C-alpha cells in the first residue's frame, strides 16, 4: 500500500520542482487530449510552446508575450499578497474592469485637451477604481464577517453590467456612428499608453508589472507587513498573538490587489485594447489566479508563470488558427496546469512511500 508521510519540514527541492513537473504533466495529458481530438499531439504542443518564441512569425508574437503577460503578472502579484494571508480575492476581473472604466473615464473627461499630466492622473484613477471595487468585499468582511470569496466574485458580474452600461451610455463615443464603445484612446495622444520602444511590446503596464514584482519581493521578505501577511497565512492565531490586526491586514491585502488589478485594466484600456467596449475584459483577472498559484505565490515565480501563461494564450491562439483546435481545448489545457500544480503541491509537504498496511 502507498502511504503519504508528512515531511518534518517543507521540501525546498519539491517546492521548486513542482511547477516544472506540473508543466510536463500538462504537456503529456494535454497531448493525449489533442490526440483524442484527432490532432497530432507533438505538433499541437510544439505550436503552443515553440511557435510564439522561435517560429517563423516570432517577431510578431514575442512582443505579444509582454502585452499579455504584463496584466497577468500585475494582477497575480496583488492576488498573491492576499492569498499568502488566506484572504481570497476572486474578483480581480471586476476590479480590472472598474480600473479601466474609471481610468478611461478620467482620460476622456479631458478630451480633446493635450497635457502631460493626463496620463498620470488616469493611472491614479485606474488604481483608485480597482481599489474601491475591492474595498467593498473588504469592508463587508471586516464589518459584518461576510465571505470575501463570494462577494468579490459576484461583484465581477456587477462590474460587467457596469461595463456594458458605460460602453452603451456615458462613455459611448459621440462620433462612433452609434456603435457601442468609447473613443479610442490610442488616437488621443495624452491618454495613450503607447509602446515605449516601437515594436517591442514594452508599455507602461509592463514597467509597472516589473516594479510590482520587486515591490512585492521587498515587502514579503524585508518588511514587517509582509512578515505579518505570511504569518497570518501560516498560523492566524500566532499572528494575532504577534499583534497583527486582522482587519487592517484584510483592508491592505484586498486594497492592494484591487489597486493593482485596476492598474492592469487602465494600462490595457489605454494601450493594447484602446477603448472601453462590452467585450473589453478577456478573463485576465481569473487567469491571474492560476498565474499566482503556478508561481507559488512568490513574486519571481509569478513573473515566470505570467510569461508561461501568456505563452499558452498566444500559442493557443496560433493552434486554434493553424490546427483548428477548439478554444475550449486550450482552456482545458490551461486548467490542467493549475490542476496538476495543486495536486503535485502535496509533495512539498508529504512524501510518498510504500508501506505495509497498518491501522494507525
Amino acid at each position, binding site marked *: 500500500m502507498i502511504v503519504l*508521510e508528512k515531511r*518534518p*519540514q*517543507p521540501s525546498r527541492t519539491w517546492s521548486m520542482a513542482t511547477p516544472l513537473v506540473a508543466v510536463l504533466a500538462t504537456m503529456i495529458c494535454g497531448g493525449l487530449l489533442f490526440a483524442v481530438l484527432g490532432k497530432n499531439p507533438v505538433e499541437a504542443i510544439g505550436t503552443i510552446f515553440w511557435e510564439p518564441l522561435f517560429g517563423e512569425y516570432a517577431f510578431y508574437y514575442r512582443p505579444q508575450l509582454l502585452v499579455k503577460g504584463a496584466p497577468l503578472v500585475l494582477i497575480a502579484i496583488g492576488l498573491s499578497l492576499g492569498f499568502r494571508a488566506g484572504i481570497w480575492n476572486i474578483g480581480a476581473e471586476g476590479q480590472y474592469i472598474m480600473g479601466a472604466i474609471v481610468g478611461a473615464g478620467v482620460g476622456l473627461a479631458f478630451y480633446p485637451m493635450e497635457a502631460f499630466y493626463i496620463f498620470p492622473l488616469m493611472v491614479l484613477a485606474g488604481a483608485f477604481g480597482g481599489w474601491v471595487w475591492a474595498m467593498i468585499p473588504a469592508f463587508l468582511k471586516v464589518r459584518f464577517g461576510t465571505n470575501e470569496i463570494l462577494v468579490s466574485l459576484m461583484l465581477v458580474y456587477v462590474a460587467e453590467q457596469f461595463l456594458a452600461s458605460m460602453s452603451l451610455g456615458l462613455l459611448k463615443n459621440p462620433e462612433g456612428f452609434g456603435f457601442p464603445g468609447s473613443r479610442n484612446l490610442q488616437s488621443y495622444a495624452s491618454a495613450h499608453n503607447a509602446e515605449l520602444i516601437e515594436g517591442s511590446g514594452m508599455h507602461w503596464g509592463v514597467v509597472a508589472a516589473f516594479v510590482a514584482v520587486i515591490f512585492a519581493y521587498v515587502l514579503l521578505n*524585508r*518588511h*514587517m*507587513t509582509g*512578515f505579518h501577511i*505570511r*504569518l497570518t497565512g*501560516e*498560523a492566524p*492565531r*500566532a*499572528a*494575532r*498573538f*504577534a*499583534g497583527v*490586526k486582522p482587519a487592517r491586514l484584510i483592508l491592505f491585502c484586498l486594497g492592494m490587489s484591487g489597486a493593482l488589478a485596476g492598474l492592469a485594466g487602465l494600462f490595457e484600456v489605454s494601450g493594447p485594447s484602446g477603448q472601453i467596449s462590452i467585450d473589453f475584459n478577456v478573463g485576465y483577472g481569473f487567469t491571474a489566479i492560476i498565474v499566482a498559484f503556478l508561481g507559488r505565490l512568490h513574486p519571481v515565480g509569478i513573473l515566470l508563470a505570467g510569461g508561461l501563461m501568456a505563452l499558452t494564450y498566444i500559442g493557443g491562439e496560433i493552434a486554434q488558427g493553424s490546427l483548428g483546435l477548439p478554444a475550449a481545448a486550450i482552456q482545458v489545457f490551461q486548467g490542467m496546469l493549475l490542476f496538476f500544480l495543486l495536486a503535485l503541491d502535496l509533495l512539498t509537504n508529504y512524501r510518498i512511500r510504500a508501506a505495509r498496511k*497498518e*491501522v*494507525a
Partner: protein
Amino acid sequence: MSTPLLSIKGLTKAYPGVVANDNVSFDIGEGEVHALLGENGAGKSTLVKMIYGLVKPDSGSMTLRGAPYAPPEPRAARADGIAMVFQHFSLFDALNVAENIALGMENPPAMGDLAARIRAVSETYGLPLDPFRTVGDLSAGERQRVEIIRCLLQDPKLLIMDEPTSVLTPQEVEILFQTLQKLRSEGTSILYISHKLEEIRTLCDHATILRLGKNVGECTPRETSARDMAEMMVGTALKTPERSGREFGEIALDISGLSVPSPSEFGTSLKNVHMTVRKGEVLGIGGVAGNGQDELLAVLSGEILTAADAVKKDGQPVGRLGPVARRRLGLLTAPEERLGHAAAPNMSLTENALLTGSVREGLESNGFLKWAETQAFAERIIKEFDVRTPGPENAARSLSGGNLQKFVIGREVLQNPDVLVVNQPTWGVDASAAAAIRQALLDLAAKGTAVVCISQDLDELMEISDTFAALNEGRLSAPRTTVGLTVDEIGLMMGGAHGMEVAHV
C-alpha cells in the same frame, strides 16, 4: 501464580527515526492495577495503542488468558474485553451524554434503555451523570466520566486509562480512585498510565517503568519511594530548582474587577477576577483545564481587549492596548499551545523569534526587518536554552514538543520582561527540560520580574510559586501564600469535587 490476564512478550514498534518500543515484556494479572510509568516520549502511548489494536507491533506477541491475542483493530480489542479511556476525549460538544455513548457502540439500544443503563452504571460506581445533558456544558471531570461509563458499559476485563488525573481536582482524583478500587475488587484489571508518582504509589499494585521505549524496571510502588521511581524513569539523578529567598517589590501587575465573555461558544467567561503580582513574585494559578486559563492569558497578552483599567501594569492602564504595545511596556506572555499560537509551525525559528521579539529586541527599523539581528537573537535563544536543533533556519514544527517549548519560553525570558505570564510552561516537556524552564522562571523572578505561571501541574506550582490562586469556572480564588498550603485546601480552591460523590462500595 495463576495465568496472567494479559501477557506481553518482546513487543517492538519502530517509526521512522525512532524506536517507540524496544522489546517490551510484562504481565498484567487478574484484578491487578498495573502502572505504566514513564516520561513523555518514553513509549507508553504506543504500547497501549498496540494493546488496544490501534497500532500493529513490528514484532513480539501478546496472550490474553493464555490465548494468542493480536487485535487488528480496536473493535476486536473491545470484543475481547479490553476498553480504553483516552487522555484526550473524543466527544461531540453539541450532543448529549447518551448520544455520545451510543455513537461509540456497535449496536446501540433504544435511547431510553441506554439512559437507564447509564444511570445504573453511574450509580454503582459513584459517577453521577445525567444522560441527557449536553457534553459541551460538562466540566473536564464530567467528560471523563462519560468516557469511563462508555467503557464500563462494555463490562471490560481490562481497562486502560491514559493519564486520567491530568484534568481532575485532588478531590475528583480521590473519587476516581475509589471507583477504580471498586472495579478491582470486582476482578477488573486496570492498566494505569501516568507520570505522577504519588498517585501510582496510592493506587497501583505493580509498576512497569519505560524509558526511551525500553522496559527499564519493575517495582511494587507501595514499597518504593517516589524519588527512586523518578530516577528510574529519568535515568539520572534529578535536580530540583533552587529558589532563593527574596523580597517582593511594588505591584507590577494589577487586575481588578475583570469580567470578559469568552470569544468561543464552549469557552469559559472570566468573572470578576482580581489579582496583583509584585516585582519578584511568582504567582501560580492552578485549576482544571478549561476553567478560563486560555482566556486569562489572552486578556494579559492583549489578544482580548478589556476595559482600560481592568488590567494595569505598574499602575498604568493597559486593558485597551494590543500585544505589540504591551510588549513595548514589558508585559510578555507565552501561551499554552505551542504550534499555531506561540509559534508558526511552518516558519523557521528565526522567523518565530521575530514573532514576539521585534519590539524589544529592536529587530525592525521603520517597518524593515533586520534579519541578521533576528537570526542572532534566535541563535541566542537556542544556545542559552539548550534547544536541540541543527540551526535557526529549521521550521518550528521540526522540533520536538519539549524543544519548541524551551524555545518559546526562552524567547520571552531573554527579552527581560517586567511581567511574564506563561500558560502550561512545561506541558509535554521531559523532566530535565521542565526543571530548566522552572529554573529560568525563578531566576527571572530573582531579578525582579513579576511572574504569573498558569499550570495544571500542582507539583510544579508548589515548587516555584510564592502565592497560589486557582481558576474555577472563570472565577479566581483569593491568592494564598504557598508555604503551608495543604492539598485539601488547594482542592477546595480548585472547586472541590465538582459535584462528584464517592463510589457506593
